[in-house]
């Protein structure tokens, strides 16, 4: 099995949200509440247990004569966010029940029949993707349409995307395609275009890459995401030092008390 991935090209996204709807339709994901946000046209706001795709509306003050594609200006950039299916997945490593597994497609999959709802994965995700459903307790996120991939089909979101903004395929090929696209955009004067794929952090690269313009933080993509478990050695060392210090401190306190008492005597 080859490792598959997504390449979401925000310069081609028109913000139609067909990916959100197709995802919910195929995976039978319930609604996420009927709340109007007042923030642009975005009422989904974040990825969550019941929102596995989320079209972000990165809004800047529109300037006349400068649409989203105009060099040097960004006005209303859309980008469809999704689980990154990290090379080193924080959720997977934190999961104590073995519910979260890596599939033959390289994706990270939550087995709902094994999940016990402990929520360790929720705090372990560097992107804030996975979440528990309040009425159910278990954790949910994008399955990378595991069932569709098993049947040789592309994920529902990529299938529904009308403009080719969400591409699905062989991860390595997508990586190359993303790099080529960046070069193409640079040549067209869009110097701020880049491919978001943190390979140099503990995340070890992601299987859902994003082609963005400008600062990745505007897309809720941290510049240096880290997997919490990679900090474990440091954490244990720090804990060990702390514990040792406490022991030494306690002993020292007893020793001092002892010497004090003897002095008093």
């Amino acid at each position: 099995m080859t490792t598959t991935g997504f390449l979401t090209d925000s310069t081609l996204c028109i913000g139609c949200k067909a990916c959100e709807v197709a995802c919910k339709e195929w995976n039978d994901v319930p609604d996420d509440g009927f709340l109007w946000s007042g923030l642009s046209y975005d009422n989904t706001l974040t990825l969550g247990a019941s929102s596995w795709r989320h079209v972000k509306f990165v809004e800047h003050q529109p300037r006349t004569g400068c649409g989203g594609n105009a060099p040097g200006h960004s006005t209303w950039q859309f980008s469809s966010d999704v689980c990154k299916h990290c090379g080193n997945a924080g959720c997977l490593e934190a999961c104590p029940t073995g519910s979260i597994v890596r599939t033959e497609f390289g994706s990270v999959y939550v087995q709902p029949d094994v999940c016990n709802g402990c929520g360790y994965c929720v705090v372990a995700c560097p992107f804030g993707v996975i979440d528990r459903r309040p009425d159910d307790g278990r954790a949910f996120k994008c399955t990378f349409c595991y069932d569709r991939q098993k049947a040789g089909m592309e994920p529902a979101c990529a299938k529904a995307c009308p403009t080719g903004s969400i591409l699905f395929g062989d991860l390595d090929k997508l990586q190359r395609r993303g790099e080529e696209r960046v070069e193409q955009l640079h040549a067209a004067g869009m110097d701020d275009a880049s491919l978001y794929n943190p390979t140099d952090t503990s995340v070890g690269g992601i299987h859902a890459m994003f082609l963005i313009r400008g600062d990745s933080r505007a897309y809720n993509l941290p510049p240096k995401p880290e997997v919490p478990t990679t900090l474990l050695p440091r954490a244990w060392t720090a804990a060990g030092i702390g514990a040792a210090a406490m022991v030494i401190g306690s002993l020292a306190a007893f020793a001092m008390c002892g010497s004090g008492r003897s002095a008093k005597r």
Partner: protein
Amino acid sequence: MPGLGTTFGRGGATTAQQDLANADAILIMGSSMAENHPVGFQWVIEAREKSGAKIIHVDPRFNRTSAMADYWLPLRAGSDIVFLGAMINYTLANDRWFRDYVIPYTNASTILREDFVDTEDLGGLFSGWDPEKKQYDSETWLYDGASAKSEGTQPGMHENSGGHGKDRSGEAQNLDHPRRDETLQHPRCVFQVMKRHFARYTPRMVEEVCGIPAERFIEVADIFTAASGREKTAAICYAVGWTQHSTGVQTIRAAAILQLLLGNIGRPGGGIMALRGHASIQGSTDIPTLYDILPGYLPMPMHDAESAGDLAAYIKKNRSPKGWWYNLDKYIVSLLKAYYGDAATPENDFGFEWLPRLTGDHSYFGYWLDMADGALEGLFVMGQNPAVGSPNGKLERKALTKLKWLVVRDLVETETATFWKKEEDCDTEVFFFPAASHVEKAGTFTNTQRMLQWREQAVEPPGEARSELSFMIELGKMMKARATELNRDAPLRALAWDYADDDADQVLREIHGKSRDGAIKHFGELKNDGSTSCGCWIYSGVYDGENKALKREPRGRYGHGWGYAWPLDRRILYNRASAAPDGTPWSERKKLVWWDEAKGEWGGDDIPDFTRGKRPDFAGDESRGGDEALRGDAPFIMHPDGVGWLWVASGLKDGPLPSHYEPLESNLPNAVHPRQQSNPASNRMERPDNAYASSPDARFPYVLTTYRLTEHHTSGAMSRTLSHLAELQPELFAEISPELAKEVGVANGDVIKISSARAEIEARALVTGRMPSLDVQGRRVHQVGLPYHFGGNGLVTGDVVNDLLAISEEPNVRIMEAKALTCDVRRKC
């Protein structure tokens, strides 16, 4: 679509969405294509990505389309003709027009009558205005030397006719042999008259009226016109942002004139893409749900002395001696044979007298006002939700209370089905029938580019839900069974109604037609002697041996083999114009259809929209009439002179050329024609329950415009009831600029009240720079944008935006003005 119909000959988009990918520039105006046609928008993006085509979006609101465009120009709602008029003026003044195309392929050189007087000299009116009747007599608009009003009114100018019949009525005019001046120097030739007419539409005027800075206008005018000519083509996309104005048809006319001048019609990457708002709106004018036409744009007979007579009188009145409409007799007779079968005989005029006659304005608004006045007993509402989706919803809901019975067929219990719960004094008996959705029944949609696509049934409809077809077949059977021997029931008795239950295939075969001797290939085989029958001549060809609407094997550049585009699977209309008069392509880059001397026929990437064997140098044989009377270099084959009409001599009720008028409600004076504020020929239908703000009106200082969002579908009946869609836009909001918000003391998210002369509604304020305030005529103009999807039923609810709108009628198509009105905004205390 008389804007396109009168200019080019057919009331349909001249191109296909896929062909937008071949454009060098695309102007999107009166449409948020990315928002409302996201799937088709992929080809706009392809043009941008593939060849660096510049995308220009002109719209009051920065929306999803603007975000993808290279240029976004915000304009004041209702000022589109000034923008387009200035584009025309720019094209002429800077010599950007395509001379080699314009002279042979348009009526630019045709000389007009001496007694025509333009708006310039009549304070904003064209000659022929009758202030008593409030309508034009278009006689002075005719070509010089054309036979004047021969008998009665000119085709298309009847006061009872709506616009859609006029897609062809202009063509029925006998234009005789007008004089032409191919040097274009004659002061009364169309070119010179037009040049003078548009001289007033300057970049300065655009700044003054539209609120677009002159230099920004010049920048995009330069880009668009430079992307046209032998080597390049540019396309225009529009939707109801143009049509829903009191000057809607003339706005589309202005775009059509511009595209003719630039030589962009009939060529790859060119054309005008009329984007339709529902799955089969094109289909519903082709096989009409309209009151004034019969299938295939045949006009409905009038109830008056001149046309209520026999079939011969109808044919005489509506058939053109030259051009394709010469065949009208074959089409009407074949239609009557399809309706009445064996009962239609030459002796009884094929049952022509059984056809209903138009006795007045029975357009949509005409009958709703009649209903409000208690003149209607019953109403069928199918696939529509007028209680929410139509203007002046208050009046429409009140009108429903005056009925004895109402039948609503829909997928869900719409607000129209439940209106009675909120009305006092309502005795209307309401019957609700569950309907099958598009996946629960078979049949065709005719899409925005005239393409029929067959849908197969995927699942059985739930419960007692059933298709429209099955419902209508049974209703017809029940009515026929109850037909009495009275004369008034003669049409019902004669009606051929031998349908099997729910067999859409059978209906499509009837539409395609047949002959007494067997199958026919297409409408070219129809006869006027009763030996053939055909349900809609323009669709004939769709069932040539097999159901071509069901085909899913696309091949070639235009995807022939996928579905079937009328007429005869031609994807780009008037594509003869993609070749020069001598039959060779204008350029290698833009070739589409050309004359193949070796084969002695037209060929290329598309099916030629031209008689295949007609040589480019054919001189036309008038003695034979019809298509054979047209020359080999006449691409607009529906027109009696074979050319595109920069000037519409007959067929439009508000002028031969577009002229700017302010919306029916506007706080600004008409800067172009100060003496004529609004379109004189439009019908305000003013009455106490359909009141108007005066112009200007201090009570309603802001401009109101309405639109749709990607997340919902029209009245919301199909989207507010589905959680996956409803959660994406769960509440009604009004987009206002930060400036306006400050002026009325409102913060983002506050509940505001929006009022017009008709009603007051509540919405949340979405304060955004995407809805900018503009400088117009020395004032700061604030615009308020409202999506109109909300109503009282469903998972998410909200006030009915259409309650704010007035019922009004554009003179040609009788559509309301929904895109430019006046309103007030207050904070809810």
